[in-house]
């Protein structure tokens, strides 16, 4: 399912127009980004939690044998909630 399909589905189920749905979704995504950048985490109980994690710098080796120092970076990770896990039938490991 791509973004277009998502918007049309949302529009159908919420009763809003497609344009309104799009602005709402864009706003939601922008809001989530802002919250993640400032606070580092967003938890949606029924769905899961988004979290910003810091990856430390490390040295890795390229296939040609060259050693490269990879800088530290912040990555967004997602962890499905237990409810969601149950729904998708993922085993709790």
């Amino acid at each position: 399912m791509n973004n277009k399909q998502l918007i049309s589905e949302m529009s159908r189920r919420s009763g809003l127009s497609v344009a309104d749905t799009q602005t709402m979704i864009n706003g939601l995504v922008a809001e989530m980004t802002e919250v993640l950048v400032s606070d580092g985490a967003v938890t949606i109980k029924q769905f899961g939690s988004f979290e910003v994690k810091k990856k430390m710098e490390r040295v890795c080796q390229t296939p040609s044998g060259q050693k490269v120092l990879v800088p530290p970076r912040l990555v967004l990770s997602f962890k499905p909630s237990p409810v969601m896990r149950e729904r998708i039938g993922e085993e709790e490991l």
Partner: protein
Amino acid sequence: MGNRASLSELTEALASRCAAGKKQTEQFVHLFFDVVADNLLKDKIVKVRGLGTFKLVNVDERESVNISTGERIVIPAHSKFTFTPDPVIRDEINKPFADFEATPLNDDINLDEINAIGDEPDNIDTPEQGAEMPDEMKGIEAPAPVLSGIHSVGGRAVEAEAEEQKTVAIGGAPETGDEGRGTAVSLSSSDIEEASDTDVSETPEEADDEDNSDVEEETEGRTADIVETEPAAKPSASSDLSQPSDSSEFPKATDPSDTAAPAEHLEPGELPTDSEVKPTATADRTNHVGEATEVDDAVLVKRASVVEHADIVHNATIMSERKSRWWVMPLLLMCALLLFSLGYYLGGGDRLHIKSLASDLIVKAKQKSSKADKKAAITKEDSIKAEEAKQRADREAAEKAEREAKEREARELEEAIARYPQVKDGKFLIIGSIGTDTMRVGRTLLNISRKYYGTTDYVEYICIMNGINNPDIVPKNAVLNLPKLRHKE
């Protein structure tokens, strides 16, 4: 990063951003994640622009071993949730570290050192020095023998020089003295260049010993000694020549002056005796003395005068020798020190270079990180300010809209309240209609109340709304208008 934003916070922020009602926004957000979850189950993949891709990946059944018990267990096939952030959000989140780039490392940089330096930036040099100590020790040890070699050679050379000077002085020619000194100096310098050959250092020693022993001997004819020293030195020189060593330079250098000194500057009368002595001289000293006594009386007188002269000159030369020794020694020491430092620099130079390179790298990295931090701090401040301003504006607009809406609502409410009949002393106000229903056979007002309001308490309001005075008597198939209620507060 401690506080986790929850759905309600997110909803609030979104409501103020989109200037929409809070309830509506909350519903929307709930719906959004429901839709994502539903479609994820249906399609196995959902892409949200700006956020990322949610995916369900099927994992096949596989066997595993319980580490603690060693029991083999089968992990059943299941699906795994994966999320890949959109490049937009990924870059936005990684902004504080965006300035960093992956840097290829040289092979000769020891990573342990870098880590150690990273931990203790103040002790940059200590681990490095410790690590390179063995190499440097070698480097230090190598020049040390050179130094001693030079030192000893230098000292001996000085002595040898002094001896030569003495012999030359006895000959009575200052020029040859200079020559002798020149050769001695050239000898010592050549030795220094060759960085100490033991053979070379030994040869002057031997010569010295023989010379010294000769000097110590109190012979009536000092010239005999002089004559004797030459052959004595010669065999050692020639023996050295036969050896395939660098010392060949020494005899070569000393030979001409030694041989030239007596040949040129001894008195003509002595020349024949010298030439006579020379072939046999190599045997032993007593022979020379014997030979010397055989020389004519005239020659003896001459020789005596020469000896007297030689004594005076000898004293003078001893003084000058001491003087020359006095300033030559520190000079040589300085030379040695210079050479030593030069050697150390050349030997340890590239290592030093690497060290400086490494420290440069570290300093650069630090600067970069600090710059990035500063930049991030500045941008963050700016963004926070902008955000605050925006939020304030949004809040004001929302408040205004809300106030207007409230006023409008209140007005409408008043009108509605005025329009509909109200229950006196009731908890609720009738403000509109939610629909109609027909009183069919078997239906009661209680039923209807329960159906629409979830409780039987609202019969009174329904009656008022429809003008029914007695709730027990309702006309058949009467169309009831169901009131929309609002709590009085």
